[in-house]
């Protein structure tokens, strides 16, 4: 029983960063921008937050102000991923550069950015281990909901996470509702399906693309921050975030572009990601289990394209840039 609860907790904890990445990427893709820079942007989001809290922790000798300890990393993280989003948007939307190439470059750059500053900070503290620990900041991020310790398994499974986990779930629901029910959402979908149509209908395509892409990046960046501050308790080590960004992109396809489905799906992926830790099966099996999320995504791709329902297809102009006077 204890093992299973720990596994569920681990799965959800692992799932939340994926959920952030997935929500952000869906928002971006719905507007027609295939942002393969998400893995890098999540690194930048994490690193920016780490830098913020590092500076704050080192400037305060005594007790940290709870509000600032939380607000500074979050704002820094949002700022970092916003800048990444703006760079990506400027290249692909304004200059109409190839989205795949730009995205991959952003990922390479983002991972490098994280590791470069990570390495620099590690040098600054001159630690024996090759990581930075921000446990004082992290303690605010890992604060669980009240009563989580007193309600037995219910508390453990549902209430034992830091606030960013709940923010991630709420964000996914909000994005789902906005995309589905609101006029803004309708316009974003129209832009992603057929920018010429949207344009002819008087929708500002550039504005909506920038809005969705940049906001998507900012949401994804928070996923990186959650991972560092909450899941691994404020410890940055280079390359520690791993390939979770790619898993988030796979999740977008797995959920067939539905952020609300992403909530359960991300926990499922998170569970698969750590299955081998909780239920060791030997070296070979472990590696095979780690592949399952990608295999499942492939299977979903096959199924959705076989059933050929139009609603389950990617946005029609995904990956294409729009230029009004193109003939």
């Amino acid at each position, binding site marked *: 029983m204890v093992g299973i609860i720990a596994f569920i907790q681990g799965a959800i904890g692992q799932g939340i960063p994926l959920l952030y990445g997935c929500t952000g990427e869906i928002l971006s893709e719905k507007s027609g921008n295939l942002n393969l820079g998400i893995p890098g942007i999540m690194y930048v989001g994490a690193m920016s937050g780490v830098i913020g809290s590092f500076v704050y922790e080192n400037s305060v000798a005594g007790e940290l102000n709870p509000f600032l300890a939380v607000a500074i990393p979050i704002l820094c993280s949002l700022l970092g991923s916003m800048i990444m989003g703006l760079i990506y948007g400027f290249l692909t939307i304004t200059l109409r550069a190839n989205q795949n190439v730009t995205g991959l470059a952003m990922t390479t750059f983002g991972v490098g950015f994280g590791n470069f500053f990570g390495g620099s900070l590690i040098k600054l503290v001159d630690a024996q281990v090759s990581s930075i620990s921000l446990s004082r900041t992290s303690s605010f991020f890992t604060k669980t909901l009240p009563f989580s310790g007193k309600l037995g398994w219910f508390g453990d499974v549902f209430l034992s996470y830091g606030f960013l986990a709940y923010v991630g779930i709420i964000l996914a629901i909000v994005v789902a509702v906005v995309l589905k*029910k*609101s*006029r803004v959402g*309708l*316009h974003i*979908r*129209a832009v992603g*399906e*057929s920018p*010429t*149509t*949207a*344009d*002819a*209908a*008087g*929708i*500002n395509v550039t504005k909506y693309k920038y809005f969705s892409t940049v906001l998507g990046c900012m949401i994804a960046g928070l996923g990186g921050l959650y991972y560092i501050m909450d899941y691994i308790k404020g410890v940055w080590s280079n390359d520690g975030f791993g390939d979770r960004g790619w898993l988030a992109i796979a999740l977008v396809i797995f959920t067939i572009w539905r952020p609300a489905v992403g909530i359960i799906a991300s926990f499922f992926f998170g569970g698969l990601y750590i299955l081998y830790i909780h239920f060791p099966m030997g070296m070979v099996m472990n590696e095979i289990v780690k592949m399952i999320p990608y295999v499942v995504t492939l299977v979903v791709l096959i199924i959705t394209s076989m059933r050929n329902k*139009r*609603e389950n*297809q990617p946005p*029609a102009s995904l990956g294409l840039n729009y230029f*009004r*006077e193109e*003939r």
Partner: protein
Amino acid sequence: MEKRIEAVKMQKITKNFGQVVANKDVNLTVYKGEILSLLGENGSGKTTLMNMLSGIYFPDSGEIFVNGREVTIGSPKDAFDLGIGMVHQHFKLVDVLTAAENIILGQKGKLDLRAAKEKIAEICNRYGFVVDPDKKIYNMSVSEKQTVEIVKVLYRGVDILILDEPTAVLTPQETEKLFHVMRNMKADGKSIVIITHKLNEVQEISDRVAILRSGEYIGELITAKTNPQEMTNMMVGRQVVLNIEREEPVNPKPRIRVEGLNIVDIEGISKVKDVSFTMNSGEILGVAGISGCGQKELLEAIAGLQPVVSGSVKYIEDDGTEAELIGMDPRKIQEKGVALSFVPEDRLGMGLVGNMDITDNMMLRTFREGKKLFTDKRKPAETAKDIVDTLKVKTPGLETPVRKLSGGNVQKVLVGREISNAPKVLMTAYAVRGLDINSSYLIYDLINEQKREGVAVLFVGEDLDVLLQISDRILVLCDGEVSGIVDGRTTDKNTVGLMMTSLQKSDQVYEKI
């Protein structure tokens, strides 16, 4: 018409695309409560001019006045605000959204689908449309989509409606319905500009005709006081002979024999039922039928692109030896000299690659020829130049990607390529769809030339008048079955028209009009 109020006035409008002059010093006036036809050859700048009115393009110079006030139209939104709406040739609809969602796209305020649907119903009642607001666009027929487009524009309360080749993809019945609606709108005081190539439609629907040639404004005519010959001459700029010659077939020999052909589509619906006929060399066999009653499947089956349930298609050599084409590789069929030029609704969808230039598109047919290591680009380049010259394709050069050409010019390239291949059997479907009258006659001449050279021609056409003029024999299809083969010289439009519908189980479809 004594007191005409100007709704839109365009003055000295000029627009260039790089080296290409699309419009030069064009003056055009649209009056309130009239239907104006905008006529011109393919690539004469009609669509470009209208796109500037609807905010898609921005003019390089010139002024636009709406209701007497000078305006700047920088985006489609500006155009809507001025009461100008355009229905584009290629529909601007989002496939996965419903009709209602498409109609309210781009509007401000809270999303209230219920209120929107009420307003849509009201518009439909006023002008006589039928729209199901909850139907997804991808489930709709072409004519339904067009209706949604028009309702979308009316929903925004436009007074000036631009229709770009609205009838090109409609059946005659659907066209009649559209015209009915247009007359209602006119009676409601709205101005309509319609771009079309079909002169009989111009005569039927419009009050006035404005003519463009090579991007320049040539003049206007009162529809009631003109005739197709005069309009054509103004469009082309010289006297044009509007008749199709039909010579007696010389020494016709059976070339293709189709027997008992049955085709079933992917959903299991029978498309071609027990069709048998023979195509002769040096003869044009016309195929008449309401669109979608098996023409496409029949042609594709002969070209080896469509699996058949049963039946045979025999290719007969001059010496009488026969070869079965069913089950043969499409490439082998092509090598036998069977050419198919099918012009689908989406011209670029089949036959041409939009991102490749004219020469490379020619190479699609020839790249397998020869045994050299590298492909031969010289010959295709010559063919390309030949087609551009004879068919007067308007293009900045042979290196221009095909997708940048205007619709009609794309088609000339496609048809030109198939003919240039010196085929033994030529099948063309809707070869002149969307082409202006002059280009159409060029194509007819080319087809006749093929006939003279002994090619067996299968000509699927939409315009019965043309079919009757060009065909030696006419195969009439009705719902996938042959309702008869008639002599093109002795039959008349009524007979063929009746045969096209004679197998129809019920006449409901036509009663609605």
